[in-house]
């Protein structure tokens, strides 16, 4: 089990501070936007990691929670809820939504589970697109959480806060009984039951936490761009990106999602022109390569090579 003792917490804290200070140093709004995206997806990857990494449940429908967070935030704010309250309330609603979906979806095995997660997200997207309340295909405007010249700096710091929260939760889970139980479920559900693990209950718990964090990310994203449409926050692209970021870095590891986010989104930024046109193609190739040659992801592969966890 990964232990976070000795020099590691200090090194991590230092790294976080360094990242945070970029907000002060960087004058360029565009650069901050890029950093915002990278850190946001590191946080989202860490959120997905709880379900897809530790519990081993391949959910490709997390966009449902991302979008629920974004739309929840927009709708609640429109109903005069104070912005920061709306942010957290939206995440709570998303978690409740996850509770309902989870009960249905976790009864299914393997591919049926994954298909059901995809289908739920799709149905949500279709519903949002077809309902007037949610602005239909035209979308909704989302209030900004920050204003003034340092908006992007503040957004970037908020994303760091989210990512750090997700990371700390991952660390706690990894060392606790909860984490062991999730890993047992990942390896073999029957054996897990035989040692007294209520698999349905634990899977659901991991989903609730994951959905809450994902929704916070969605709301933050919504407030950053101040306008949301179903095709930006509820598409399977978002679900895939969360999964790929984690798989590429190493599902089930602590640093994997972070490394994956830096690699994937960093590369997307560097190769922006080609990527924009065909980013799905690159995602597809990456997935195929990872499955064939690096199924444990970058961090997972390194851990295996050099021992220790």
């Amino acid at each position, binding site marked *: 089990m990964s232990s976070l003792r000795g020099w590691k917490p200090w090194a991590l804290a230092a790294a976080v501070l360094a990242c945070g200070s970029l907000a002060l140093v960087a004058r360029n709004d565009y650069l901050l936007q890029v950093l915002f995206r990278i850190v946001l997806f590191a946080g989202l990857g860490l959120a997905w990691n709880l379900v897809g990494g530790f519990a*081993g449940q*391949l959910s*490709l429908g997390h966009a449902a929670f991302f979008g629920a967070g974004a739309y929840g935030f927009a709708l609640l704010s429109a109903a005069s809820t104070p912005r920061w309250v709306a942010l957290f309330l939206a995440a709570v609603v998303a978690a409740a939504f996850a509770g309902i979906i989870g009960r*249905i979806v976790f*009864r*299914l095995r*393997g*591919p*049926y589970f*994954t*298909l*059901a997660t*995809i*289908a*739920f997200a*799709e*149905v949500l997207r*279709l*519903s949002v*697109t*077809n309902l007037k309340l949610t602005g239909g295909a035209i979308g909704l405007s989302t209030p900004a959480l920050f204003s003034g010249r340092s908006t992007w700096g503040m957004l970037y710091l908020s994303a760091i806060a989210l990512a750090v929260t997700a990371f700390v939760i991952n660390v706690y889970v990894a060392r606790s009984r909860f984490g062991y139980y999730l890993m047992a479920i990942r390896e073999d559900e029957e054996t897990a039951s035989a040692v007294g693990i209520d698999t349905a209950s634990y899977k659901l718990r991991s989903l609730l936490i994951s959905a809450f964090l994902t929704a916070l990310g969605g709301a933050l994203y919504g407030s950053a761009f101040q306008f949301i449409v179903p095709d930006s926050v509820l598409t399977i692209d978002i679900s*895939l990106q969360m*999964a790929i970021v984690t*798989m590429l870095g190493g599902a089930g590891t602590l640093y994997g999602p972070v490394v994956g986010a830096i690699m994937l989104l960093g590369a997307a930024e560097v190769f922006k022109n080609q990527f924009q*046109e*065909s*980013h*799905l*193609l690159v*995602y*597809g*190739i*990456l*997935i*195929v390569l*990872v*499955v*064939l040659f690096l*199924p444990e992801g970058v961090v997972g592969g390194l851990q295996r090579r050099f021992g220790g966890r």
Partner: protein
Amino acid sequence: MIVFFQACLNGLLTGALYALIGMGLALIFGVMRIVNFAHGAFLMVGMYVSYVLFDHFGIDPYLGFIAAGLFLFLFGQLIYRFLIRPVRDRSDFMQILMTTGIALILTDGAQLIFGADYHQVNIPLVNRTLRFGAFAATAASLLSFVIATVLIAGLYLFVTRSLTGQALRAIAQNIEVAQLVGIDVTRIQGLSFCLGIALAGIAGGLLLPALYLFPSVGDDYTLKAFVMVVLGGMGSIEGAALGGLLLGVSESLTSLYLGNQWALAVDFAVFLVVLSLKPSGILGRQRT
């Protein structure tokens, strides 16, 4: 009342094409236990092949579908050899990821090659309507129905009567025993995969006159194919065909009473209901 039956008729006509798609997945998922999330993408490839033949060489899709099927059969050999076989024995998770990756490559590849524009194929047959008493059907849909039915019958005979078909069923039932009696499992599995995606491609070719063509057109069909396999029962190729017909009718009725945009939602609801109530499907057997 007539409207209801007309919708059922339309549903059956489309359902036969769906049956091809479902049977294709049943071959892959049922026989090989490969979770093929790229099934819809292969259908899309078949559609584009037929489109290219029509657009550049004037070949009618009702002939071009054969080429689509052949192309996918051969293409499948490559995909099977290099991408599917390595994940054959790995977890569902990995297979889903791999086939999702393939789907992304195919879909975005199509977009790169053909652009994101919608294409449409206009054939005179589509506009000719035949009437039977109070009911009507376009000549095109009747033709594709006939073709699909012939193929379904052919496939059924192949699977039940031919030696290869029986080997297929043997592998679907119990792979170890099949190996013990000397069946070349790898070769038959490869054949099964290629046949499966060829069927998806053929269905694509036959659907070309009826749908708008664009790179993501196949995305919904993967889910639909799995619904058919679930409806019909794991391991049952006939079941998937039946599932296809049922799904066609269900979608047609949904379009009639709720509107087109809810078709996918209803598919999904059917999927969940069947999995909750009768997981082994309508024609399925218990998995040993």
